[in-house]
């Protein structure tokens, strides 16, 4: 097949010493950017964009535009892996797509005392997800990108509704509490600017609130600060002792074993993540939440979710990394970026004097196939680096909580400040720290709040675009087969708890715990 020849040529390009050296530098930089909360992959890539001009114009011996894109994309791969580290160890998301790792990653690390296993699980599923995605990229880039164009507002809205429904219908907490948290999240997401009418909304006349309430400072507060307040109350006892004393690569082997038990979940999430990544504008973050919802839906022990369930790490992580890779597909093939980070990489292409699109494959095959080969190599490199670091990272959790607590608070505050260099984000973090503490005490689930805040804007936009296109008729959503199926599925998921209650009542038995939470 022609593809194999092209790919071999790509590997020859990517394995060129200068390209490998820059790839290595990039993934290390990406890991650091990923670990630092507030400094995200998108801004990291944007900051380093000017340097790539020198690279692309041959300022380094043997470098060209291919080196430049391998470098930029490498930062993204590093950040995709690295973002989860602080989520798991400190309950502070390093990257937007690592927010979902707070739900189960941190509980596994802290409450169950297995930070090494949590990290290794995340890395192996990231790697497998990326691998699946890169293989799909290699063989089906163009046809899939063209198919994704047909995904209109009705279909996208249905996907969002479905991911919300997975969180209500199958939540371990009382469903009404999940609904309340979803509503609060949507309300927060509505703050700022109404993109459809072009008017300011719920910002109380504050220009600084026009860009909306970013979910990163909110989650840093809810999880990072909120958890510290809760732990301080428990005096941080009983967890340092629990941390496993092993400091070897055993965790990695254990994680591989866990992966084998969940192979179907991880592979299917990787494929779904790929398709989600190809859709313009959504990318890894939305895919990670969808992946979490699906992992929970398919799991036999749903009650373990939120308490350190490994599927709750592997599912979203496979989807997120897969979507990250896939977001380059429409960018390269059609000039439509699939995620904010790939939008910045596309800006790089323009600045180096290249035009993305189908012509790129014909005019610059070295560039395209060099990039594709570097995705395989970049992920392999990142994976090895991360696994080697697992024992060291896990050791951090053995530092006494009294020492680590102030450190986490400082990192949280700096992280939210550095997001936009604005004190407003710091206030948001502190306020949501208090809210998070209170919600924890009241046993409200935090996950639906965060999901609604993250996806609320996009969901609202798709809903309203669909309604404009359908001249206001809600029946528009049932014009397409795909959106009909997804919406019906979502409705069924929401009704599950209700049906359960009714059935339990008929039998005269006590309602199940899922509904009758005291």
């Amino acid at each position, binding site marked *: 097949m022609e593809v194999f020849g092209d790919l071999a040529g790509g590997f020859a390009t990517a394995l060129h010493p200068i390209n490998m050296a820059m790839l290595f530098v990039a993934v290390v930089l990406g890991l650091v950017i990923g670990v630092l909360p507030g400094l995200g992959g998108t801004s990291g890539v944007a900051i380093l964009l000017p340097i790539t001009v020198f690279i692309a114009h041959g300022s380094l011996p043997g470098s060209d535009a291919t080196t430049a894109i391998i470098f930029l994309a490498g930062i993204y791969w590093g950040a995709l892996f690295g973002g989860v580290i602080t989520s798991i160890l400190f309950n502070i998301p390093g990257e937007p797509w690592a927010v979902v790792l707070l739900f189960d990653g941190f509980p596994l690390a802290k409450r169950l005392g297995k930070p090494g296993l949590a990290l290794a699980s995340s890395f192996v599923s990231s790697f497998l997800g990326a691998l699946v995605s890169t293989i799909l990229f290699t063989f089906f880039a163009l046809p899939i990108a063209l198919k994704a164009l047909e995904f209109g507002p009705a279909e996208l809205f249905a996907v969002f509704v479905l991911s919300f429904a997975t969180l209500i219908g199958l939540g371990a907490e009382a469903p009404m509490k999940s609904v309340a948290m979803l509503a609060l999240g949507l309300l927060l997401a509505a703050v700022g600017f109404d993109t459809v009418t*072009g008017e300011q909304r719920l910002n109380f006349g504050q220009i600084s609130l026009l860009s909306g309430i970013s979910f990163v400072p909110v989650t840093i507060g809810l999880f990072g600060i909120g958890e510290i307040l809760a732990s301080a109350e428990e005096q941080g006892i009983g967890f340092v002792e629990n941390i496993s004393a092993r400091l070897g690569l055993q965790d990695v082997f254990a994680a591989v074993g866990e992966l084998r038990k969940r192979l179907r979940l991880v592979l299917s999430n990787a494929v779904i993540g790929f398709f989600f990544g190809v859709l313009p504008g959504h990318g890894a973050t939305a895919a990670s939440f969808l992946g979490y919802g699906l992992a929970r839906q398919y799991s036999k022990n749903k009650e373990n979710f939120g308490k350190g369930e490994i599927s709750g790490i592997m599912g979203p992580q496979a989807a997120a990394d897969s979507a990250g890779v896939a977001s380059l597909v429409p960018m390269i093939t059609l000039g*439509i970026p699939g995620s904010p980070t790939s939008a*910045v990489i*596309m800006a790089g292409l323009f*600045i180096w*004097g290249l035009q993305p699109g*189908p012509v790129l494959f014909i005019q610059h095959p070295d560039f395209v196939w060099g990039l594709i080969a570097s995705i395989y190599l970049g992920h392999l490199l990142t994976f090895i680096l991360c696994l080697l670091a697992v024992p060291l990272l896990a050791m951090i959790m053995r530092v006494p909580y009294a020492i680590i607590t102030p450190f986490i608070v400082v990192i949280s505050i700096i992280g939210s400040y550095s997001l936009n260099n604005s004190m407003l984000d710091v206030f948001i973090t502190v306020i949501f720290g208090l809210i998070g503490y209170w919600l924890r005490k009241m046993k409200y689930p935090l996950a639906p709040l965060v999901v609604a805040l993250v996806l609320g804007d996009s969901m609202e*936009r798709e809903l309203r675009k669909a309604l404009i296109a359908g001249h206001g008729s809600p029946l528009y959503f049932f014009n397409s087969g795909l959106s009909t199926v997804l919406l019906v599925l979502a409705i069924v998921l929401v009704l599950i708890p209700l049906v359960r209650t009714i059935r339990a009542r008929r039998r005269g038995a006590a309602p199940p715990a899922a509904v009758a939470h005291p």
Partner: protein
Amino acid sequence: MEVRVMASPVIRTAATLMAALVTLSACATANAPSATSTGSATAAAAVQPTHPVEFVISTAPGGGSDIYARAMATIIENKKFSPQPVTPLNKEGGSGAVAFQYVFEKTGDMHYVMITLNSFFTTIITQKLSFKATDFTPVANLALDPFYLWVNEDSPWKTAQDFIDAAKKDSLTVAGTGTKQEDEALFRRIEDLMQTKPFTYVPQTSGATVAAALAGHQGQVVATVNNPSEGLQLYQSKKLRPLCAFTPASPTTAIYASLPTCKSQGIAIDDYFIMRAIMAPPGLSQAQQAFWVDVFKKVYDSDEWKKFMSDNALDPAFKSGLEFRQFILQYQQLHQNIATKFKWVS
């Protein structure tokens, strides 16, 4: 210029108020040293930057303005046109309102420049911000990004006239970037001029998603007014095709060379472009303004920028000084008229 201490909902800080008052005096005496809300009096009075400069971008990373601004910043950096680094900074939100407010508050400080497009007029008018486009210190316009009328490759319409005929029969669904922004402004002008049925306008998030919506028949979208660079990739993959260009003459770029003007096909609009212009905070001295005009003139004259403009099918159009001021006034009036006519402002 007047300082309007208005009953605006915006809670203004004391510092801003002071800065605005100083602007008044600065404008009165042209080169009076002005204190700023951030820098010292000496820094502001200098005729060239004394510390790193923020190049404010009103859109998210990866958007049209962002790409242009980063290309300019890269040229300034590589060619050492500025004694201090010029660092791009995204201040997206509120269709540009966040960036405009941010730069407005830096009154008299030359360490801020901003790339603007037509939202510089539309957003300020429709969101009733507390300042006007003319309050800022104009630096220069570097390029004009033309609009083309696009349809899907499988569309039955071959000419702009076909499109207009269809639009007179039914209300067509069209897409563009943002609400009450340049794309909608152009569609409303067409509607008004050609007496078509009102277009159903679906706002998208970026030029790329507008092109994608048309290519994928998303939500029954049948036409857009994408820029040539935004439609290029999907034109090459034979998913979209342009019907005509809203320009005085046919394009010169090879791939679009045979494209007729819209005017020649009956839609007499040839004066509407997206400006790619640089603005600075209000109240810069003439010398400070001249410094930035000089920097961006050098960018404009560089081979890198010329290649960038031709790659992206931008029309080169350097405007500064009086010519640029007149352009700003003309565009402000044009957008004000549209906003009034289509009741964008209540």
